[in-house]
């Protein structure tokens, strides 16, 4: 049962990813990403990370993707031509992709870390539920938590600075 779920989700995630890369039209790419994100959420659930999964769905599939869709709509998602100005790029790129995948895979498979080969220890109930995460966020990781809030603020400011209509900004 679990295995089936995993493979379905994995295929979904991977397919979504490939879709993002392969789709000529940005709009479709966004949609593909959404697929990817949902299947990723499933994987998180399989890994008994309920809260993360939830956040994934809410934050990404909810907020971020909407943002994407708006922007794409705003700038108009024209198809991008297949013309490749950088010599050799489209040959080397896949090779590199394969290369790093192989390296990472080897790193994982050749590792002498036994736990990798297991399903992981059975975790006590409540592992990864909002309460646990919440405690961690407010106790051990209070500071990163706060910091990331500042980060969000800065990002917002930045977005305003960049995107808002402004007098001199229009000069050109």
């Amino acid at each position: 049962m679990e295995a089936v779920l995993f493979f379905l989700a994995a295929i979904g995630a991977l397919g979504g990813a490939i879709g993002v890369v392969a789709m000529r039209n940005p709009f479709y790419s966004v949609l593909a990403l959404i697929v990817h994100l949902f299947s990723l959420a499933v994987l998180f659930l399989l890994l008994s990370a309920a809260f993360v999964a939830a956040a994934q769905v809410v934050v990404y599939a909810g907020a971020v993707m909407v943002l994407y869709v708006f922007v794409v709509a705003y700038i108009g998602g024209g198809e991008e031509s297949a013309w490749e100005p950088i010599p050799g790029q489209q040959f080397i790129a896949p090779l590199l992709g394969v290369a790093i995948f192989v390296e990472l895979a080897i790193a994982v498979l050749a590792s002498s870390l036994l736990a990798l080969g297991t399903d992981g220890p059975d975790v006590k109930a409540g592992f990864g539920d909002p309460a646990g995460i919440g405690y961690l966020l407010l106790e051990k990781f209070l500071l990163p938590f706060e910091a990331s809030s500042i980060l969000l603020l800065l990002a917002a400011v930045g977005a305003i600075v960049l995107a808002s209509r402004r007098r001199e900004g229009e000069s050109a």
Partner: protein
Amino acid sequence: MNIEWYIVLSSLLFAVGAMGILIRRSPVVILLCLELMLNAGNLALVAFSRMVDNQQGQVFAIVVMVVAACEVVVGLGLIVAIFRRRLPLDVDELRELRG
């Protein structure tokens, strides 16, 4: 299900994302690919946190989501600004700076 599977999957996603950055030219899509890579990282984090049985990894994943969101916001802001400036939305066309 072995943790290895998750990790290998995540590295596959990582590779795909990286490849996407290398071959796509629309900044939006490139941002999407960055998302892919970050998510790959998240998957790895969560898988590991499951493996070592502590939730720090999950917390990390959540923070990463925040960060990713920020990058997206800024990135999209930039894209809009560029669009406003009537510059082509194609990273290959933006090469005033070189040499």
